[in-house]
């Protein structure tokens, strides 16, 4: 006969306030094979664990049930405690009598007490039939994939590379930098954005441990933590990057000009071009949709002028296979698409631009060389309206969330504007001013006072063109009056949304996104950079809007997690996975089809299905689908589950 121990936790008043723990302990103690039954105020505390350890030693227990909170809290704690006494940790099970009992039956104390007892009895049925199991050791690949070459991806890559790990960094644009490359100066100290970024990006480019793939995307991912197999698609740049010296003669000579997205529609770009001047790497690509050679074969200009013979019209997309142990997703953000912002005149009125557009205007390497002039006629705007929360905090029409950085971005814009146009007047429409990080409130107050910024608390109802000016109709909720400003230019602080393609990428990585498309962390507070899939980590605005400082912290945080993960030789995985009774398996292959983790495979010689132990997550899909009951879960067999059910129904 077994010698089982049952340990019932009060969880302060969380359980004991509803469940009569003493009577439960007493009743359970009368069960034939229960050699020890005890209760304690906090089983997870050190003295609580000591009670368990002593009982295992003193009573020679060979199975333990701890009745307490959810196993996601302390299963690990108690399994470690029993292991310290030489018991196999998988002979210890949790009976959840808090979340599944005391918390939901606070007003039914007697019923809750009876239910707690039943939950414990059912868990005892499971423990009676549990096998001793060993954790599965899996070899790990000590390389890391970072997706996204903005400041988040750059920071994570540098930390990891400096920590001694090889990094594969993917960026889908032709160069590093992300949105930070578009910024002029950054709040609150108004440092030039580009110089700081350029140093970091150059470090990435030079780093011997970082394999940089620009103009590249992740095409396919297989595998699991420690052992991901990747297929990377390197898009054809049509330029041999080994030969190209970045001299720029091809760009000068290219006859095709079109509107530049990087310059937010205000500058032009060539069919062969770099992403931005002095980009890292500073090598051009041919944008084939614009190139005359690719459209009708009519032009070979770049090929003719290139002194290094680097132009290669025949270049094709290349597919590279790589293996890594962990992945950082740092895919960044986009601004809300302008096509959908009709009432602000955005996209129709040329002098209504968005925040990134204004950043380009303020940038020394931008379309106006840093001069603030309105796009329609090149005049210096004397009355400027900035509108915050455009498409943010607007659950009925746009995004319900706050985009977090716009208040500071706008204050910075207004300040720089006043520095350049001292006789100009900026008006800022806002809902709440959100300057909640170190030095931000001070920056904002100082700017308001020194630069005489006019903040108007209220929403804008309409923006329209009239007589060469942009009229802004709004309401000032502090006076309750309507406001109309005849402005020369309007800058919209549009909402931050996840970048295109994140959903597809997340699906490939088996990571999840929320309803807006932001990547979901494992726990909003305690695991902010872990995804719910092991080995996949999240950094930057792909997870939610944040400023540069928070993005950099988060990126370094992913690097910390990964350095810790990869510091060992083997990863230990829970052995609570599926197994096959080879005598019964008919080899029908249904399990192979149904497995969401690609953990099932046919053995071609024996004609039966196998379980890939490192891939199996123990979800049970194969078990439910097997027509022959040839498949079972370790320590979760059908007979165990049925016995547990019997306890509840009898």
């Amino acid at each position: 006969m077994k010698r089982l121990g049952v340990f019932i936790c009060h969880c302060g008043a969380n359980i004991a306030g509803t469940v009569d723990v003493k009577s439960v302990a007493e009743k359970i103690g009368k069960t034939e094979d229960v050699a020890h039954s005890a209760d304690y105020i906090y089983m997870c505390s050190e003295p609580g664990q000591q009670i368990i350890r002593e009982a295992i030693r003193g009573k020679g227990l060979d199975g333990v049930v701890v009745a307490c909170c959810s196993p996601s809290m302390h299963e690990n704690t108690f399994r470690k405690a029993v292991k310290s006494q030489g018991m196999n940790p998988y002979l210890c099970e949790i009976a959840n009598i808090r979340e599944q009992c005391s918390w939901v039956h606070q007003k039914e104390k007697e019923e809750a007490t009876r239910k707690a007892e039943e939950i414990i009895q059912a868990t005892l049925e499971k423990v009676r039939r549990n096998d001793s199991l060993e954790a599965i050791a899996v070899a790990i690949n000590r390389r890391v994939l970072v997706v996204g070459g903005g400041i988040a991806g750059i920071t994570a890559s540098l930390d990891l590379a400096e920590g001694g790990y090889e990094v594969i960094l993917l960026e889908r644009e032709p160069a590093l930098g992300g949105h930070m490359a578009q910024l002029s100066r950054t709040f609150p100290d108004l440092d030039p954005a580009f110089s700081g970024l350029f140093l970091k990006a150059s470090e990435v480019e030079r780093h011997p441990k970082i394999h940089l793939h620009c103009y590249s995307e992740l095409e396919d991912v297989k595998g699991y933590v420690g052992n991901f197999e990747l297929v990377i698609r390197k898009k054809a740049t049509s330029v041999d990057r080994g030969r190209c010296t970045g001299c720029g003669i091809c760009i000068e000579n290219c006859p095709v000009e079109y509107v530049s997205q990087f310059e937010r529609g205000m500058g032009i770009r060539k069919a062969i071009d770099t992403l931005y001047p002095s980009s890292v790497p500073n090598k051009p690509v041919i944008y084939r949709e614009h190139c005359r050679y690719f459209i009708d074969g009519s032009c070979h200009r770049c090929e003719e002028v290139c002194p290094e013979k680097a132009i290669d019209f025949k270049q094709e997309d290349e597919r590279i296979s790589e293996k890594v142990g962990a992945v950082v997703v740092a895919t960044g953000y986009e601004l809300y698409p302008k096509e959908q912002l009709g009432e602000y005149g955005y996209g129709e009125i040329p002098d209504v631009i968005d925040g990134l557009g204004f950043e380009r205007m303020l940038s020394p390497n931008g379309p106006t060389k840093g001069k603030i002039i309105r796009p329609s006629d090149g005049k210096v705007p004397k009355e400027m309206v900035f509108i915050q929360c455009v498409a943010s905090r607007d659950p009925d029409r746009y995004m319900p969330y706050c985009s977090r950085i716009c208040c500071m971005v706008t204050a910075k814009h207004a300040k720089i504007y006043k520095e350049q146009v001292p006789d100009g007047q900026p008006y800022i429409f806002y809902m709440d001013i959100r300057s909640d990080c170190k030095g931000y409130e001070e920056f904002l107050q100082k700017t308001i006072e020194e630069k005489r910024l006019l903040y108007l608390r209220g929403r804008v109802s309409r923006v329209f063109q009239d007589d060469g000016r942009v009229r802004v109709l709004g309401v000032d909720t502090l006076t309750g009056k309507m406001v109309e400003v005849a402005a020369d230019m309007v800058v919209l602080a549009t909402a931050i949304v996840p970048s295109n393609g994140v959903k597809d990428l997340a699906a490939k990585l088996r990571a999840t996104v929320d309803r807006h498309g932001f990547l979901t962390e494992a726990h909003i507070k305690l695991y902010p950079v872990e995804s719910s899939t092991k080995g996949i980590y999240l950094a930057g605005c792909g997870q939610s809007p944040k400023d540069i400082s928070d993005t950099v912290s988060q990126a370094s945080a992913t690097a910390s997690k990964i350095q810790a993960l990869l510091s060992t030789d083997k990863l230990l995985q829970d052995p609570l996975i599926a197994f096959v009774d080879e005598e019964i398996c008919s080899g029908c292959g249904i399990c192979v089809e149904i497995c969401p983790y690609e953990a099932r495979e046919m053995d071609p010689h024996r004609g039966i299905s196998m379980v890939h132990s490192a891939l199996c997550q123990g979800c049970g899909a194969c078990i439910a689908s097997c027509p022959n009951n040839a498949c079972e879960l370790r320590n979760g067999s059908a007979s165990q589950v049925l016995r547990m059910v019997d306890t509840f129904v009898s």
Partner: protein
Amino acid sequence: MGDNGVFVKRAMVIGGGIAGISASIDLGNGGYEVVLVEKLPSIGGRMLQLSETFPTLDCAQCTLTPKTVETGQHPHIKLLTYSEVEQVEGKAGDFRVKIRRKAAYVDWEKCNGCGLCQQKCPSKNPSEFDRGMGLGKAIYTLSPQAVPNKPVINPSNCRYFKEKKCRVCEKICPVGAIDYEQKDRFVEERVGAIITAVGFDLIPRESFGEYGYGEVPDVIDGLAFERLNSASGPTTGEIRRPSDSKIPKEVVFIQCTGSRDPERYMPYCSRVCCMYTAKHARLYKHKVHDGQTYIFYMDIRSTGKGYEEFIQQGMEEEGILYLRGRVSRIFRDGEKVIVWGVDTLTGKKVEISADMVVLATAIVPQKDAKDLAKKLGIKTDEYGFLTEVQRKLRPVETDIEGIYIAGCAQGPKDIADAVAHANAAASKVQVLFAKN
């Protein structure tokens, strides 16, 4: 580099709150030995005082305890609680840190944490952990789940130390662990890197005459409300006001108390108050269905993931009333607490006759943060927050190689940001160790 040219790949983390814990676990999991120094008797920091956390309203203890337990059991983490850094010498790779291990008057080697001494101790005093609302014993642990679960004697409350009487704990202790003669001890630790995660305090209540704080018993601060709302707190989670233990039916919450007020208090925003006040109001409404909540605010700042939605839900579904404006005076009138303020949206004066007032007081650095910074040779700003070397691109590094900062010691931040910041500091330490 050490004397013998060896770079010591061992780290010290100062401060055992959620930031220090997160950094320690990362470093421990990375295979490095960590010495975690905490000035209180056990780890957990401010988070241990919280009831539920925004925006998910999950129980703070339930999410924190697995972390404190993991820290306590981690084979690579050495806990030095009830300890303070006395002196720091050396440089990256070879810091020699002298640590004062304060006299607990309990031999922790012998003590088995049975708790009998605490049960029997006859001296009851207002508990600082419960913000003065509950009674604590002279021999105490911070919580029943304390890590480590070893008590200390506070001599200023202990009858033996005050009057040479009592000795109940000594008599009752089954393992003879009480040691009234214990003295502070000093130990030296050699480490290669240091993370400073000493957390925050709330602005002292003596500062707030006009809010009646400290004079009117039913005017409490945010941490006190956390304790009131906490199942392990002085009211076992029932919202009862301190003066007469009645359930308050009208509660006023006042944000930006001591924050964003450059003339009189702190010019900066304390970052977490908008969210915790919204949380307080919502939790109050969950427990007192017919109660009414008023929140005075300047701007509502709900910038984190899911935060704006949390605020909106509170307003729309739970009827929380937001008033945009400052409060000019709070005073007692019989059983009521009168709040005078102004609603800047209507331009009218507002008077509320409340049963209880909760002040969201400013976050300030720990009193001794400046002192510690001096010992470490790192900078602080004018308020005493530790200064990072570069605001945006190097947010966890200091001017001194090998010394890093994490959490609210650098500036106010919420739990998610404090954890990410601490993880980032741990990354920098791992990089430093890997390179040397």
